[in-house]
Structure formats: structure tokens, C-alpha cells
């Protein structure tokens, strides 16, 4: 827990101020994930290792069933590896308990899901405020930062619209704002354009590009090669292992 002390208070510095010094945000070493269904054991991940630096824009590609979703869940601390270690910004999260994982998800990771996952009963600003609510920020501060984040994704005029009153592209931009609002170490986007028409998809990809340019670390999971091209580096996963697993990072960098 020592490494987490510096993030235990709510960070309020403006978004986009990140150190230029590159250090790994993600360090994955020999991670296995085994699912058990009855007597049947399925290895979804079979010894995955990788390292992603601060400020990188990485796409993880693979067909369905390749294990890319499982990897994304582990990277997002939504699931824990069966074996192996995963360090997020220097802290080993593979040994953390539920409460600590919730804390890590809250402060260090911003999620963008394929299905947007906005709460339909809350307006855009309140949806963006949610992570700050669980971080314990005060109401005025939550509001201020949510509005800031929505302005950043170009939805400053939609703050009191509910998800039902927004287009798919706009909803995904609200989700991006929600991912940004806690100023996380990592933005994880799982097929962010999967449910969008091509115009909205381009819109959202441009937004991610912009965030990358301003210094964010972004990991994008997709099966679409065109989408993956936007990233600075692509990791291909197949049958639970990175393709060319011998030294995937060295060449790609």
C-alpha cells in the first residue's frame, strides 16, 4: 500500500500535466488466467508479458476468443490473474484485496466501454461525477471538474442532458469525459467505436488522439485494424499469447 499514499488524496491539478520522463505505467509478467467451468479448464491467457510506458498509445488487437478482453479486464483491475504479476504505476495489483482494487480503479484507471455504460437516470454531468463521488470529492468540486471534463470532450452545452437525449457518439464522449475526470494514470478503451457509426467513431478516435497528444497513456482494445492504426504501437494477441511473444515490445518501440 505504500506506493498508493501519494494518490490517496484527490488530485485536483488540471488534466494533461504529466511528467515527460517515461516510466512504465503497466508491467505485466507471465500472467495466466484460467477459467474453470465444471471439470473443464480453459486458459484464456497463457503467460502474457508486456510493458507500457507513460504517454504511450497502445492498441491490443486480436480476434474474438483470443484473450484480449480477459487481458483488458486484468489491466483494468476488474479481474485478477490466476498467476503472474501485474504492476500498475509501480504497485503490484495482483495481490490486492477487493477494497484496494476499488481504490486503484477509482484513482488510476479511466474506463471507456463499448456499451458506454452510462446510468440512464443521471444527466451527463452526474455521470461524469460518479468516479469523483466514490473518491470522496465535495459536491462543488465534483461539479466543477465534471463540467471541465465535458467541455474538454466538446460537450460543454450538454451537461444536463440525460444519456437518452444524446447520440451514441455524444454518449461515448460523455464516457470519455468520465474516464478523464479523475486524471488517471491510464485510460482503457474497450472497443470504444464498436457501437458507433463511422462519423461518430472518427470523432471518438480523434478525441483519443488528442488526449494522447496532451500526454495521456491510452490502451485501446479492438479487433479493427483501422482503429488500431491510430495507436503508436500494436500488440497482437492470439490464443492467449502475444504473437511473436519472444520480444514483442522491443521491436514495436
Amino acid at each position: 500500500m505504500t506506493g498508493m499514499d501519494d494518490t490517496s488524496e484527490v488530485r485536483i491539478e488540471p488534466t494533461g500535466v504529466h511528467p515527460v520522463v517515461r516510466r512504465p505505467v503497466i508491467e505485466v509478467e507471465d500472467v495466466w488466467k484460467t477459467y474453470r467451468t465444471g471439470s473443464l479448464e480453459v486458459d484464456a491467457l497463457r503467460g502474457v508479458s508486456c510493458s507500457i510506458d507513460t504517454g504511450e498509445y497502445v492498441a491490443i488487437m486480436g480476434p474474438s476468443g483470443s484473450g484480449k478482453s480477459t487481458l483488458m479486464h486484468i489491466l483494468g483491475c476488474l479481474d485478477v490473474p490466476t498467476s503472474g504479476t501485474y504492476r500498475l504505476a509501480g504497485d503490484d495489483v495482483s495481490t490486492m484485496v477487493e477494497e484496494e482494487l476499488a481504490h486503484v480503479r477509482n484513482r488510476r484507471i479511466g474506463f471507456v466501454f463499448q456499451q458506454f455504460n452510462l446510468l440512464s437516470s443521471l444527466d451527463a454531468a452526474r455521470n461524469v461525477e460518479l468516479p469523483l463521488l466514490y473518491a470522496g470529492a465535495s459536491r462543488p468540486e465534483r461539479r466543477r471538474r465534471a463540467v471541465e471534463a465535458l467541455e474538454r470532450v466538446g460537450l460543454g452545452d450538454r451537461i444536463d442532458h440525460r444519456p437518452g437525449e444524446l447520440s451514441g457518439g455524444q454518449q461515448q464522449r460523455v464516457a470519455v469525459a468520465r474516464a478523464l475526470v479523475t486524471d488517471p494514470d491510464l485510460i482503457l478503451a474497450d472497443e470504444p467505436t464498436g457501437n458507433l457509426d463511422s462519423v461518430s467513431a472518427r470523432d471518438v478516435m480523434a478525441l483519443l488522439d488528442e488526449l494522447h497528444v496532451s500526454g495521456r497513456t491510452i490502451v485501446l482494445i479492438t479487433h479493427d485494424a483501422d482503429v488500431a492504426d491510430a495507436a503508436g504501437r500494436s500488440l497482437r494477441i492470439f490464443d492467449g499469447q502475444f504473437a511473436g511473444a519472444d520480444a514483442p515490445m522491443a521491436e514495436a518501440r
Partner: protein
Amino acid sequence: MNLVETFRTGLEAVVSHRMRSTLTVLGIMIGITAVILTVGLGEGAQQQVGSEISALGSNLLTVTPGSTTTSSGIRGGFGSASTLTVGDAAALTSKVVAPDVNAVAPATSSSESLVAGTSNWTTSVVGTDPSWLTVRGRSMTEGRFIVSHDVATRAEVVVLGATTAQELFGFRDPVGQSVDIAGQPMSVIGVLNTVGSSSSSSTVANPDDQAVVPLTTASALLFGGSSRNSVSQILIQATSSGTLSAAYQESDAELLSLHRITTTSGADFTITSEQQILSTATSVDRTLTVLLGGIAGISLLVGGIGVMNIMLVSVTERIREIGLRKALGATPRVIRRQFLVEASVLGTVGGVLGALLGIVGALVLPHLISNPITVSPVAAVGAIAIAIAIGIVFGVYPAGRAAKLPPIDALRSE
């Protein structure tokens, strides 16, 4: 996340899921209303019987012929034995023999047909003396009661209860009119006050429906019988409720010696106090309350199962929401607290609305069904507590389970 924020989040969820919240509240509300009304009906019946019995006269002892013992059944036999006489009653009026007795009224009664013009009405005709009015704790609304002179002269006069007068004469003034009792024309001299009567409880005869005649007139002209001096009961009023048992002892001893009986078990009469009647009647009504309470409990249980269903379904529906909240940093504890607030709010709102509806029902229903309903604060508070407990148990338990799911499983669920 502090308590105010937790409360606000829970409250928002209640408001935003209108249909679910309404159904849950409705389920709890109906259960609570049922409990309050059924328990209220039972208690109302108990109180009614109590007030009816006290209307019979206060600090009252009733002596009847014959006695029952556990070993040999009925002794002397009701009706057959005319063991009580006017003389017994006269002896008890002595302040030396029975200092704690305030008044004594011998009485004999029979069901007779009363005819006035074209109306006829069958009611209980009581033959007694002037002290009956004191002993029974009654008064006159009109005319006068029987006086000693009437008893001495076997006057052919009658005093009617309010209901009896109404049945025979409608809205005409009965005083001065003539009534035929068992074929004997009698003159109406007065009408008794109304004590309020029961339509529902059959435990006590209606005190507003009777006709009172002088004892001598009754035995000589109306009822006949072998002994003109025998009476069917002697009513004794103690000087106060504190002396009731002393009056009982004195009367018992005096009657035993008058009847030359040496053992208490050989008594040919029985003395009952109004408390005994009251306790019998109350125990009957208590059984009724338990029965109604049982029905209410079952309706609450059924309501609770309904609420449980709605809660379970709604938590299942919201597993994705729980998963999302967890992905965004909510700990299982925060999730459980949010659902605890939601469930308590639903339970409290349902309970309070149910209690209000129950109270309104208790005020309105007696006008429609003629049964009194007493709202018991204990039942109301207890029912609300149960409502909250139902909400919490059935709302928080499934939410607690959902909160424990790995966030990704929750997010994936459809």
C-alpha cells in the same frame, strides 16, 4: 463517500425507478394497513364488550339459583329450583348483616310478547323493585320509574327501554299509553335512558330493549309460577369497587345461613360478579383478536414475499449498474449502503403510508360496517418496524450478493 452522499445516491435511485418504488411501497402499504385494521377490529370488539358490561351496572353481584361444581355438575337445577326468594333479598338490605352492600334488587324475568295497538314486539320483561334503577346504574329519560307503592299495590304499570318504546310506539310519546303484556293491559309510566348498545356482540343482552314492571305485578299477573315469592335473580350493588369482594363474602354467608346450608360446596345458589362475565367475554374477543392478528400476519407475509420478489428482480436488473459503480471505484460496502438506504426509504415510506391508510380506514370503516375499530399504537409502530425490516432483509441481501460479484461479471450480465 460520506453518509449524506450515500443517502442522496440511494434516494435518487428510489426516485428514478418510479415503477419499482411504487410497487414496493404499495406491497408494504397494503400489508401494514391490513395489520392495523384487523388488530384494530379485534381491540375495538374487546373494548365494546367491556363498556357494555360496565353499562349493566357498576360494582354488581348477581345471585342466581342453583350452583355448578366441577365434581357433580349442576346442583338444584336452573329454573326448577326456586331457591331464591324476596325474603333473601330483603335480608341482604340489612346494614348489620351486609354493611358493604349498597342496594339490592330482586328480579324475575321472562320473555313476553308486548302489544300496543297494531305493533307487537317480543322482549325481556323484568319484574323488580325500585332499587333496580340504582343497582343497574340507569336513569329515566321520560316519566318515572316504579316506586314502592306500585310494588305494594301490584300496580299495572310498565317502564320501557328506549328501543322497546321505539319499536312499539315509533315516534309517539309512549308515556300514558297502554301496552298489553301477556294479555294484561299495562300503563306505560316511563322510558329508560339509552346506554348504547351493541349490534355485534351477542355476549350481553341489549340493555335498551326490555320492559320493567313491579315484581309483585309480574309474579301475580304475568308470569304465574308455583311460588309467588321466588325470584330468578338478586342483583346486589356493593358500596364501591373496593368492597365488592367483602359484599360477596357477606352475601354468601347470609344466604348460606338463611338457606341452612353448612358447607360452601352445598350451596343452592351462585354469586357471579361482573368481572367474571367481563373476563369470559374478553377471552372470547381475545381469541378473535388472535385470529384476526394471524390473518393480518399472513397478509404481511404475503406482502413481504411480494416485496422480496420486486427487490430481487430489481437488484438482478441492476447488476450492470452495480458492476459499473464498482468499476468506477465503489467498494462493496458503499454498494451495500446505497441499497440499504434505498430499502429503508421504501420500507419507511410504505410503512408510514400504510399506517396512515390504516388510521383513515379505522375512522371511516366503522360508519360502514358498524363495528368499532381501535387503532393500537403498538400495532402501528410494530407494523412499520416490520415493514422496514422486510425492505432491508429482502433488499439488502441480494444487493450484498451482487456487490460481492467481480465487477466484470456484473458488467457483463444482461
